[in-house]
């Protein structure tokens, strides 16, 4: 099994006729994703890779009864695209773009919460349930189906980890890019109940980084409510103080909130295995496998 999306998930692509949108529609179709429609205002009636294009999300929903949307539009248009999707009744929304204004995301975040919509990203690679489906821009070839759930604020650290997992015969149930921005639509603590409930997920990897409190919130939840082994890596221990490392969210504030030391302590206290590198994550999981826990 998997969480969030599987082989039955019907996906639409907002911005499907754009360079990124059309390329990744092709890639997702090749991977097996059920891309049932796309949206680009003014291009309704066209097709991309055999997928029908609509002028609005409302029309795409009516024609396809889609479950989820992935938004491949530039950062400055993301807010309107998210609002359109939520307004049309979409219940799961994946956003990809980097450099989305934080105020735009603040508005989208609160609207999604109020309407019970699962919003992901921005600054995220999307979500993949290996062997079944993917919604996003990650290359599919180094993922493999299996029993480890992965959640990551960073795309590159996630790829690195997943490739080594696959090379070592450890597959993944679902890998979620929660995104590197200050306001992630959905974060670790909200995904843990899904991984707990999924019988095929035997262990979870959290790839966090400095800044914010997402890892601490996850630790508090794991302590009392999560029964499966969790391995965590916090990147950015030696990042220069007070400078954003490219991920807008990866910055330690002046009072020390968001430091790697705080996060590792909270996670360790909750019984989480702390890895100090992507390779170390794999070493710990191999050990768990040897013990029959995977």
């Amino acid at each position, binding site marked *: 099994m998997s969480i969030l999306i599987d082989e039955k998930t019907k996906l639409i692509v907002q911005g499907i006729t754009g360079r990124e949108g059309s390329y990744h529609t092709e890639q997702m179709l090749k991977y097996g994703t059920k891309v049932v429609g796309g949206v680009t205002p003014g291009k309704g009636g066209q097709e991309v890779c055999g997928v029908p294009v609509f002028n609005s999300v409302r029309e795409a929903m009516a024609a396809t009864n889609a479950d989820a949307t992935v938004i491949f539009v530039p950062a400055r248009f993301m807010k309107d695209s998210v609002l359109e999707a939520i307004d049309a009744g979409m219940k799961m929304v994946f956003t990809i773009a980097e450099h989305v204004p934080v105020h735009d995301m603040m508005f989208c975040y*609160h609207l999604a919460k109020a309407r019970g919509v699962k919003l992901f990203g921005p600054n995220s690679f999307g979500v993949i349930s290996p062997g079944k489906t993917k919604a996003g821009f990650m*290359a599919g070839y180094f993922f493999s189906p299996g029993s480890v759930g992965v959640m990551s604020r960073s795309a590159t650290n996630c790829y690195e980890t997943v490739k080594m997992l696959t090379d070592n015969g450890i597959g993944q149930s679902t890998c979620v890019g929660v995104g590197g921005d200050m306001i992630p639509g959905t974060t670790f603590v909200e995904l843990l109940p899904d991984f707990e409930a999924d019988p095929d997920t035997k262990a979870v990897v959290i790839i966090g980084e400095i800044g914010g409190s997402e890892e601490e919130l996850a630790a508090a939840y794991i302590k009392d409510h999560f029964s499966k082994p969790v391995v965590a890596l916090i990147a950015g221990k030696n990042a220069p103080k007070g*400078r954003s490392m*490219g991920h807008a969210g990866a910055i330690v504030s002046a009072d020390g909130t968001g430091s790697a030391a705080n996060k590792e302590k909270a996670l360790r206290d909750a019984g989480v295995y702390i890895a100090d590198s992507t390779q170390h994550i794999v070493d710990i999981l191999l050990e768990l496998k040897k013990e029959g826990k995977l």
Partner: protein
Amino acid sequence: MKLLEYKAKELFDKYGVPTMNGCVIDSAEDMDGEIAKAGLTYPVVVKAQVQIGGRGKAGGIRFADTPQEARQHCQDLLFSELRGYKVNQLLIVEKSANNKTELYLSIMLDRLTKCPIIIFSANGGMEIEQTAKEDPDKIIKVTVDPFVGVKDYTAAYLLSKAGMDQAYKKQLYDMLRKLYAIFMDYSCMLVEINPLVINAEDRLIALDGKIDIDDSALFRLPDIQEFANKLQPDNPLIREASRFNFLYIPVDEDGTIAVTSNGSGMLMSCIDLISKEGMKVSAALDLGGGATADRIKEAIRILFSTPGCKAVLINIFGGITRCDEVAGGVKLALEADEHKDKIVIIRMEGTNKDVGLSIISSIKGVDIVSVPGLRECVKALVDRRDRL
């Protein structure tokens, strides 16, 4: 994007937040003319326009009762350096005398609640950070529902919790509404007034202003973008890198290793692992996705120009980024003769890896090592520790 005080004051004036009458000068000769034009009366305060905290303690804020004194301060401060920052402008404002008290007021974006949060204190001024540490109950915080905004009850609550007279409610509410409008209209991360004084006539006046604007929103704020373009970044390589759409981050002045990757998470991992081995990273450069050979060449050149750089670590996990483009760019950069003494460690994974590797193996005359993983990258550096 942190605005200088005079720019923050411009926004305050535009939105009707009460401030002291003032003018901005960038040459000492203009002082008398600008002061007359703005109709300022003495005494005045001469304030250096630099983005540092504790500006008063650093000598950047000076009082003048006469034009002679003001002129002296202008000559002393203008184009001087305050904690390494050059003073290019001065803000001169009338002095608010006999203030009854100094308050603190700010609105910032709170990561935990994902809401704007108002922070208010009756104990404002220079010691606010100490108050926050020693007497946190004197710092009042209230989150604002972005669908509701600030209301007059917000002001009533803040005054009540701060132990202040409700007679100030109308003025504080007015101030909050205007600050919140700036916060929302300008996509701010922070709008701060410290001190916010109650003057002898019981009026609230902003004596300082700090505004931090989300860089990602600058595209829709042409007036701020124009201001940003005029500011020099603190490091010329940051500007050079941004010309090619790269993010360049200085890390450690004593560092000898520059790192680059196609994502900031991986950069952080590289820095962490190198630091763990007791070696130092001088700078990091994020290529972003999809860099071509021409741009990679520039990235390598910029990293080589980092002071103290003896080695460059290139770690690519390609999705959108193609390994053949990366290798081509590295080859172009290394063919320039002046880099023969440098060490280059490269790790590539992903699209067109084999073509990339064969290009790397064709590079001659430089110590370039191609390795299969991040761990091996760090090992290759450790093996060359005596040359770093």
